[in-house]
C-alpha cells in the first residue's frame, strides 16, 4: 500500500535539522568552552575556579530563591486555576485573558515597573510617607527578587494547571462523592492526583527561568542579591571569559536537571503523566 505523505519518515527532516543546529550544536559548544582555556587547550581549570571562587554559594542562593518563588507561585496558582474552572465558560475566557495579558508585555518593562513601585522613593514608600509612616526598604531585598520572579512567571504556572483541571471528567468527581468522598477527600484523592501533570509542567516552567534569571535580580535585588544568572552574564559581557561563563552554564544546567529529577521522584509515584526528565 502506498504511504500517505504525512507518514513519510523524511517529513521530520527539517525539524531534526533545526534541533541539531539550534539545540545540539550550542550545547556541544557550551561543553567545548567549559573544558578549554582561551587558547583552546583542554583543561579543568574553569571548573576548579568555580569551586575556588565560592560560586557554589551563589548557585545555592539561586536555587533557594527559585524554589521559594516556585512554591509561592504554586500556592497562588492552584486555587486560582481551580476556581477559574468553576466559573461560567464566558467568565473563564475573560479570566484567561487577564492571566495572559501581562505575558504580552516585555519582561524587562514589567520588571522595571515593579522596581519603580518598590524603590526608595517609589509608589509604595510615597504612599506610606503621605499617611505619616516611615519609609520601608523594599527594593534590593531577597523579597523583591522573589516577588519579581513570582510576578513575571505566574502565568506559566496558572495555564498548565488550569488546562489540566478543565480537562478533568466531572463524572470522576461524582464517582468519588458516590463512594463516600466529601469535598476535601475528592480534592486530595482525585482532583490533585489527576492534575499533577499540569502542576509538574507549571513547576518546570517557573523554576527553570527563575533559577537562571539575571535581569530580575539586577533590577530588584541590587548587588547584594546577585544570582548565578548575573555571574554568567558578567563573564560573557564584562570579563569576556567565555570559558568560565560556559562552565558556569554547564553546571547550572546539571543542577537544574538534578532538581527536576528530585522533584519527579517525589511527585511521579506510579503516575505516568508529566515526567520531564
Amino acid at each position, binding site marked *: 500500500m502506498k504511504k500517505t505523505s504525512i507518514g513519510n519518515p523524511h517529513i521530520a527532516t527539517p525539524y531534526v535539522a533545526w534541533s541539531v543546529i539550534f539545540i545540539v550544536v550550542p550545547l556541544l559548544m557550551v561543553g567545548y568552552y567549559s573544558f578549554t582555556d582561551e587558547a583552546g587547550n583542554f583543561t579543568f581549570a574553569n571548573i576548579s575556579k568555580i569551586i575556588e571562587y565560592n560560586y557554589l554559594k551563589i548557585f545555592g542562593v539561586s536555587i533557594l530563591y527559585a524554589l521559594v518563588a516556585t512554591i509561592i507561585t504554586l500556592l497562588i496558582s492552584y486555587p486560582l486555576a481551580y476556581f477559574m474552572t*468553576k466559573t461560567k465558560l464566558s467568565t473563564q475566557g475573560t479570566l484567561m485573558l487577564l492571566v495572559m495579558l501581562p505575558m504580552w508585555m516585555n519582561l524587562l518593562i514589567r520588571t522595571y515597573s515593579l522596581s519603580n513601585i518598590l524603590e526608595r522613593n517609589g509608589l509604595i514608600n510615597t504612599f506610606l510617607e503621605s499617611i505619616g509612616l516611615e519609609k520601608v526598604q523594599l527594593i534590593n531585598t531577597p523579597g523583591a527578587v522573589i516577588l519579581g520572579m513570582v510576578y513575571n512567571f505566574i502565568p506559566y504556572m496558572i495555564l498548565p494547571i488550569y488546562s489540566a483541571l478543565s480537562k*478533568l*471528567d*466531572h*463524572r*470522576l*468527581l*461524582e*464517582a*468519588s*462523592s*458516590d*463512594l*463516600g*468522598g*466529601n469535598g476535601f*477527600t475528592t480534592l486530595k*484523592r*482525585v482532583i490533585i*492526583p*489527576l492534575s499533577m501533570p499540569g502542576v509538574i509542567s507549571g513547576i518546570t516552567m517557573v523554576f527553570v527561568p527563575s533559577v537562571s534569571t539575571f535581569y530580575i535580580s539586577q533590577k530588584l535585588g541590587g548587588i547584594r542579591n546577585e544570582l548565578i544568572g548575573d555571574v554568567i552574564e558578567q563573564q560573557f559581557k564584562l570579563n569576556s571569559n567565555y570559558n568560565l561563563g560556559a562552565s558556569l552554564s554547564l553546571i547550572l544546567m546539571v543542577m537544574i536537571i538534578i532538581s527536576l529529577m528530585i522533584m519527579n521522584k517525589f511527585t511521579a509515584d*506510579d*503516575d505516568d503523566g508529566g515526567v520531564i526528565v
Partner: protein
Amino acid sequence: MKSENIIELKNISISFGSQTVLDGIDLSIRDGEFVTLLGPSGCGKTTTLRIIGGFETPDGGDVLFNGKRINDLPAYKRNVNTIFQRYALFPHLNVYENIAFGMRVKKAKDADIKKKVSEMLKLVNLEGLEKRKIDTLSGGQQQRVAIARALANEPSVLLLDEPLAALDLKLRKDMQVELKKIQQSLGITFIFVTHDQEEALTMSDTVVVMDAGKIQQIGTPKDIYNEPKNAFVADFIGESNILDGVMPEDYKATFSGYTFNCLDKGFEKNEQVDVVVRPEDVDIVAPEKGMLTGVVTSVTFLGVHYEIIVDIGGFKWMIQTTDEAFEGDTVGLYIEPDAIHVMRKSEYSGMFGDYSSYSDEIDHLNDAEVNEEDENEENFDW
C-alpha cells in the same frame, strides 16, 4: 415506625432551565427489589436515578430513604452507590485501588480492604487483575470493576445507569444474567435504568415505564406486557397492533368492524377505547373462518416465526406466526378473547399508527441511535 419501602419518591419534580424533566413522580421501592426505570431518551429516567443518588436536588417533592427524608443529604453521606454510564473509573488508580477507594475514604484497615477487594474481584470474576491499569482493560472488564467498586461499599441500594449500553450484544446478555445473579445473592435493592425493553423484562421484579417526565405504568414485566395501561406503554414494550375501538358492553369490544368477546369490563357503555392485540396472539385461518379478513402485503421470515403484515380495511396489522402465508393471499384472522386488551383513551391515543410504514431496517436504525447521551448529560458543572 420503620417503612418497608427502602426508597420512596413523593411528587418529585425538577426542571433544567425552562425544560421540565420530571413532573410529579411517585415511586416506592421495596427492600431487595430489582426495579428498572424504562423509557426512551429524555424521559427523565436518568434524572430520577441521579436524584436518588444525590447528584440532583429536586425542585419539589420528597426523597425518602427508609422513611427518612434525604433531600438535603449529600451524595457522599447516602448509603447508595452508583454504577455510572461510562463507569467513571479513576484512571490514576489501578483495579485494586479503584475498588478500595470507598474503603480508603472510610479509613478501613488495610487487611480488611485486602479481604474485601479480593472478595469483590471473585464476585465479578476478575481475580488476578489487581495491579492492572484501568486503560488496559476491555469494556467488559471495566464494567466489572465498576460493579466491584460500587458493591465494595456494601450499599443498601445500587443504582445502575445504563450499565450495559456500551457492551456488545453477547456480553450484554451475559452481564444481564450475571447482574441478576449478583442481586439475588446479595439481596440488595437494584435500581436499573435502561432504554432497552428486553433488558427490562428479563431482569426486573418491577418495571417502571416513563415518558415525558412522568411514570406511565408500574408493574411486573408480565403486567407491563400483557396489561399495558396506555398506547405508549403498549407501543414501547414489544410489538403491538393498537386500534381504535368501542366497548358496547362489558366483555365486548368492537374494532375493525367486528365485535369481539374479551375479558375487559368496567367501561362506560359505548366508551371510546384503545385496543391492543399482540402480533403473536393472532392466528391466521382460512378467510371464511376468520373474524376479520384481509390481504397479506408482506411476509418476512425471521427464523423462529414469520412476520406477516395484513391489510384489514386500510389498517396494517402485524402478525407473528409459524404458519406460512404468501403476499397477495386473502386470509382470515382469529383472535381469542384473552388476546384482546382494552385501554382507556389517553394523550397517547392515535399517536401510534399501524404497520404501514414498518420495515426491519428502520427498527434497527432506531435501535442503533438510541441513547448515546441521556437527557441531562450537559447540565453539570463541577
